[in-house]
């Protein structure tokens, strides 16, 4: 063929540490201790419980439009747990709840946000996360700038930025990766390839067999990992974080996973997702996989499950109670945090608005 750079004919085999049956791949040393794996499992299960709860609240009109993590927990938790929340940052898209929680965001903040209360957007000081990003891919250059700033100030911090297979088609993805390559910025690009962008299947999103194949075009490595394998994701992310921390620059990680629910609560996936596809992915569930693994190691059984599920359900209820107890949002919040030093015209608008509602 006439070209030096040829596209792959087939997807590569993803890195996998934990097989669907919960056994470790031959020759692999587990990237987490049992304690760490249990901790990861808790975040995954918490998210799943929250998803179910929030979905039912949404159906009753008591929660806004939101996107579940269901099925993708290993991708998010495996990667986030490679970070040191004290110095590292998480830059989310919108489907990364457990990563935000692990960084220290109170669950009730997240709930408030999706209940439509502006106060929910508040990120406590010291919690190293950016706000949820609705404008797809816009967060990616922001993450690069943040990593660049950490590098300039020699904090030792690393940024993990999340985005979907859909978002990876946006120009911002490209501009950000290219800039990060040039700067050798300490950033990990975490592409959650969950097979769909709303109704658009992965194969209509790009003809590339693997999206990680784009990394060499920016001068850094790309890895494909089984996104339903928390140990595998943790391992490649840890390696990428170490690389970044050492000053060797970015990595693009493509985690192959599957969105097991609707795009969000406003979506009807039966219009485009086949039951067959869902059936094929069900046995690959990321939570059950770790449970099998830990069970085989004597660290998981029905008693432990019952205890932990109880704890997590109480945590969700607690957060919900806090969120519900928050003061109802009010008109003054429209004007808060827009400027430090608001224009006089805006102050007048504020006065008029509050007066008219009084």
């Amino acid at each position, binding site marked *: 063929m006439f070209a030096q750079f040829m596209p792959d004919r087939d997807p590569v085999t993803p890195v996998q540490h934990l097989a669907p049956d919960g056994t470790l791949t031959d020759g692999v040393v587990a990237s987490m201790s049992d304690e760490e794996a249990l901790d990861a499992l808790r975040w995954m299960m918490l998210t799943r419980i929250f998803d179910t709860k929030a979905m039912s609240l949404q159906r009753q009109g008591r929660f806004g*439009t939101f996107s579940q993590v269901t099925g993708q927990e290993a991708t998010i938790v495996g990667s986030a747990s490679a970070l040191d929340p004290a110095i590292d940052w998480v830059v989310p898209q919108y489907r990364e709840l457990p990563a935000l929680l692990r960084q220290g965001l109170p669950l009730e903040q997240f709930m408030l946000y999706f209940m439509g209360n502006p106060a929910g957007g508040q990120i406590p000081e010291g919690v190293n996360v950016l706000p949820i990003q*609705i404008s797809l891919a816009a967060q990616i250059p922001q993450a690069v700038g943040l990593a660049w700033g950490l590098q300039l100030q020699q904090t030792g911090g690393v940024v993990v930025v999340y985005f979907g297979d859909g978002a990876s088609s946006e*120009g911002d993805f490209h501009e950000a990766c290219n800039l990060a390559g040039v700067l050798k910025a300490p950033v990990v690009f975490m592409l959650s390839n969950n097979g769909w*962008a709303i109704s658009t299947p992965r194969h209509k999103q790009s003809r590339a067999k693997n999206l990680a194949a784009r990394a060499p075009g920016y001068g850094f490595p790309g890895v494909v990992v089984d996104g339903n394998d928390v140990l595998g994701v943790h391992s490649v992310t840890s390696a990428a974080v170490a690389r970044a921390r050492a000053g060797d620059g970015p990595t693009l990680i493509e985690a192959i996973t599957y969105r097991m629910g609707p795009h969000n609560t*406003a979506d009807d996936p039966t219009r485009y997702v086949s039951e067959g596809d869902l059936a094929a992915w069900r046995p690959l569930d990321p939570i059950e996989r770790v449970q099998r693994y830990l069970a085989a190691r004597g660290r998981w059984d029905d008693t432990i499950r019952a205890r932990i599920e109880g704890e997590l359900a109480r945590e969700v209820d607690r957060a919900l109670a806090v969120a519900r107890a928050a003061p109802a*949002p009010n008109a003054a919040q*429209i004007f808060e945090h827009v400027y430090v030093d608001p224009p006089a015209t805006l102050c007048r*608008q504020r006065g008029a608005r509050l007066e008219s509602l009084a």
Partner: protein
Amino acid sequence: MSGAAETVATSSAAATTMTMTMTMIEAIRDALTLAMERDERVIVLGEDVGVLGGVFRATDGLQQRFGDKRVVDTPLAEGAIIGAAIGLAVSGLIPVPELQFLGFGHQAFHQIGQQVARFRFRSQGRHGMPITIRSPFGGGVRTPELHSDAFEALYAHCPGLKVVMPANAYDAKGLLLAAIRDPDPVLFLEPLRGYRLISGEVPTDDYTVALGLSNVVRVGDDVTLIAYSAAVQLCIKAADVLAEHHGVSAHVLDLRSIVPLDVDGLVAAVERTGRAVVVHEAPRTAGFGAELVATIQREAFYSLQAPVERVTAPDTPYPLGGIEDLYVPQVDDVVRGVLATLER
């Protein structure tokens, strides 16, 4: 709607007989179907417009009917959707791209304002741009961040583009058909809150409503309310309240498009009462209301008995759903604006 008779008069189908009750989204879908049926060159493209039929179902059924070569699910990249539409137009087709929400038109802003709008000019007439960009916009239904913004003023400031903003189902169909058949590029903005809430009698036939003609939707004597898109409904409701509770007779004008702007209709509507209130969802500063006020004060200066009032959102970002009703103008706000204007 009292303007219906006038509406039909300005439309291309004089003797339409069959009508059906349609929601705005049905009227839009009907227009797309007719446009595609009548002209093979019309092609629909965008995120999730095919198999899913659009997140609001505006394009539902079109792919089944016209095939996946003419109704195309694109990758997730607004700049490429609009950029590609330009090339499709150059090749001789009539693209009708969809922006899933106007809030994501910003990603394509360079392709819309600088490219689509100027291509005919840059090629000195060689490459026309018969593109109609459809997009839902506006608030009121608690969508997530950035989904509810009303950015019409930004596009109205891009010479070469037309900006059409229907307020009811009849106009949605007739204006969309006119837009698709217009040789100039049109940004066609659909009030997402009205998709299912606003409905009316719509002829099942093919008809167009001419771009650039406003519509008097309520005749009144004391004050003129001026709006476009969903805000027209707000003004009609405010007119009801004003009549019922305040003895005020409000004249309501639906602009239908902001580019072209029907200056004559606007001036006539204002001169009738000598007082005017302009209503829109977008923030006040540099919103399209400013253009309306500036035009009115110049062209109807000597008949104005009070300053023209603007009822708009404040100059802050669109907030989360929990307080959006305190942000986006409500019927009460329009009423208050009118009463203030009458007192001056």
